[in-house]
């Protein structure tokens, strides 16, 4: 029983981490219709900036703010300077460009910050809460991750549903011509979308890093899991991303904990889950309309 609780809680926390990253993918998809594979490297870059600040004596929270701001700047600059040149062309071009950025940024991090493993601090404890006689696999840091992801999700839902900016962003992503005719400044909206997505990605990167080890490629496996989570949720829905992340986190934790040699099967399981969901519901679990081409 205790093992079941611990494996479940581990999966829950991991799932929230996948969800955080999936949220960033959803945001950029909603606002620009691009799947951004460079998201992980961009997040890693800001995490290394934060770590450098913390190591020079800054508080965690100040470093977090700087990392988020630098994430916004990085996202906006990349959109303006690099992605803008391929926008409007075949969709595949933009995706390939983000793949190139992914490699380039990762190499850049290694050049600037080195490629060694480093532990990343967390503002909260790493010891599990005490329940009765046992400690459970749920720490103050896990709680912080979950709360932060839920707040982010709420803000994104609110942004797209209740604000003019959110509406304008969605419009620019869907039909640039029409949006332009209606007076939306499409270029700005795209830049804003990239900037905001990078902020969310950066937050995910820092949440993942807290109490773990970072190195330039530490986001690599999360890109895969985050992407699977986002697709599970329909790639379009912040709530779907969180649910997708949780499903994936729990499923993978059970595989790892209960299947013999499960740790080796984790990546395969993610693929199987993705395939099954796409076969049953091609648009993802939370797809809002099936007619749209994805």
């Amino acid at each position, binding site marked *: 029983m*205790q*093992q079941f609780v*611990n*494996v479940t809680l*581990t999966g829950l926390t*991991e799932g929230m981490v996948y969800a955080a990253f999936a949220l960033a993918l959803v945001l950029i998809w909603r606002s620009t219709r691009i799947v951004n594979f460079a998201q992980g490297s961009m997040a890693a870059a800001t995490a290394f900036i934060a*770590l450098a600040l*913390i*190591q020079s004596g800054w508080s965690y929270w100040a470093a977090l703010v700087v990392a988020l701001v630098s994430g916004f700047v990085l996202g906006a600059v990349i959109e303006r300077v690099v992605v803008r040149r391929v926008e409007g062309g075949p969709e595949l071009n933009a995706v390939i460009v983000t793949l190139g950025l992914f490699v380039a940024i990762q190499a850049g991090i*290694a050049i600037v910050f080195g*490629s*060694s*493993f*480093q*532990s*990343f*601090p*967390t*503002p*909260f*404890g*790493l*010891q*599990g809460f*005490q329940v009765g006689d*046992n*400690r*459970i*696999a749920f*720490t103050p840091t896990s709680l912080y991750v979950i709360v932060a992801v839920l707040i982010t999700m709420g803000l994104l839902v609110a942004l797209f549903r209740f604000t003019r900016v959110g509406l304008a962003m969605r419009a620019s992503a869907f039909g640039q011509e029409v949006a332009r005719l209606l007076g939306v400044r499409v270029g700005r909206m795209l830049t804003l979308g990239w900037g905001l997505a990078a902020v969310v990605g950066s937050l995910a990167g820092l949440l993942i890093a807290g*109490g*773990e*080890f970072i*190195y*330039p*490629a530490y986001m690599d*496996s999360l890109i895969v899991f985050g992407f699977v989570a986002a697709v599970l949720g329909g790639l379009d829905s912040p709530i779907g991303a969180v649910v997708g992340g949780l499903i994936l986190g729990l499923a993978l*934790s*059970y595989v*790892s*904990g*209960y299947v013999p*040699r*499960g*740790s*080796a099967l*984790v*990546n395969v399981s993610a693929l199987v889950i993705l395939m099954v969901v796409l076969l049953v519901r091609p648009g993802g679990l939370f797809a809002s309309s099936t007619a749209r081409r994805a």
Partner: protein
Amino acid sequence: MTVLAAATAASTLAACGGGGDDGGGGTSSGDSGSNEASDIGITETSIKLGAHFPLTGVAAPGYSEIPTGAQAYFDCLNEQGGVNGREIEYIYRDDAYNPTNTSQVVQQLVLEDEVFAIVGGLGTPTHSAVLDFLNSEGVPDLFVSSGSLLWGDDPETNPYTFGWQTDYTSEGKIIGDYIAENFPDAQVGLFLQDDDFGEDGEAGIREYIDDQIVAAERYTPGNTNVGPQIAALQAAGADFVVGFNVPSYTALSQLTALQLGYDPQWFYSNVGSDPTLVGNLLNNFSEGQVSDASLLDGALTTDYLPTVDEPDNPWVQEFQRIWDECGGEGELTNYRIYGMSQAYTTVQALQAAGQNPTRDGLVEAIETAGSEWEGPVLAPFRYSEDSHMGTAGMSISRVTGTTTEEVAPVQLTDIGDAEIEAYDGEPAEVPENGIPDEESVVD
């Protein structure tokens, strides 16, 4: 071409006469002729050696320091005249612990850089990928940095490959025997890397305490979430956990155990146990909860080399001198001692291969004389025509703070049915300048 080579060789020999006087090691058998470009990677004045190591990625912490230690040793050696008047040119490349990369960088080393031999290539999954290539090309593949049985138990299939460190099965046997004797009531859980490393270790340990083992959990390198595995060990009631894992997973397992409030007696096999490294990995975490290596305090581990926490050991003192004089940034670490010790054995092999070594001659030299060589390694090597296994012995020690203290002296064993017995040899003396002086056994 030959005439030209002979002419330069004569002048080289004249120039290195002085080196022989003060170094003592360089030119002992050099009176029988002149240096020639006797094989690929050998010139009159240099020997080119290659290696692959994870300098980036999940296995890089610790392991990336090994080649810096070897480099420092070779640099100091070159200042003293090298081996038979030849400088060692040491090229190491990053494979990020990814077998695909290993194939690529080793092909580059062999085909483009044209190295004489590969020395100390690191990792079981990684080096497995180039085993066939090196043996079919006839490239000596010395002293693989891994304790897998693959490198030494079948010299007929892999005549050019040699192991170096204690193999994981022998290590498992020594650990199992120690537990059976000192912790007969312990419920043992195994935390294993899911490849040959974990399997070999498990096989050895099960020979002695199969009935004490209550759980065996495996992690896949690269998957950093070991929560389910540690939770399963806890649930199985293991109060003694033996880890055959790489250093970053020592840190991860400790961190996860802290999270779960799980506090068994830990025993990390030699590979994953460096307290300084694990301490450094954990040192950024919050509020002093995991401030230093204190998490590892009380953990048991094995040794087959002297370690940095033995400042009175003459080998450590000599390696410290070499690191201070020829090393790069940072401190002397156990990984750098490992690299230097491996370089030391390499020089022994090159000396034994004679003044004008060939690839086949090098293999013959190790098979003939290797079991006699003494050095920093605590127990002798098992090299012969029938076995390319490295050293066979280990001591057991306990981590206290950032140092270790010995709890069981060096014991010897071998793979298969070999018994475990105490080793009665004396520690070897350090030669002048830390350079060995082996006789040629081939010419």
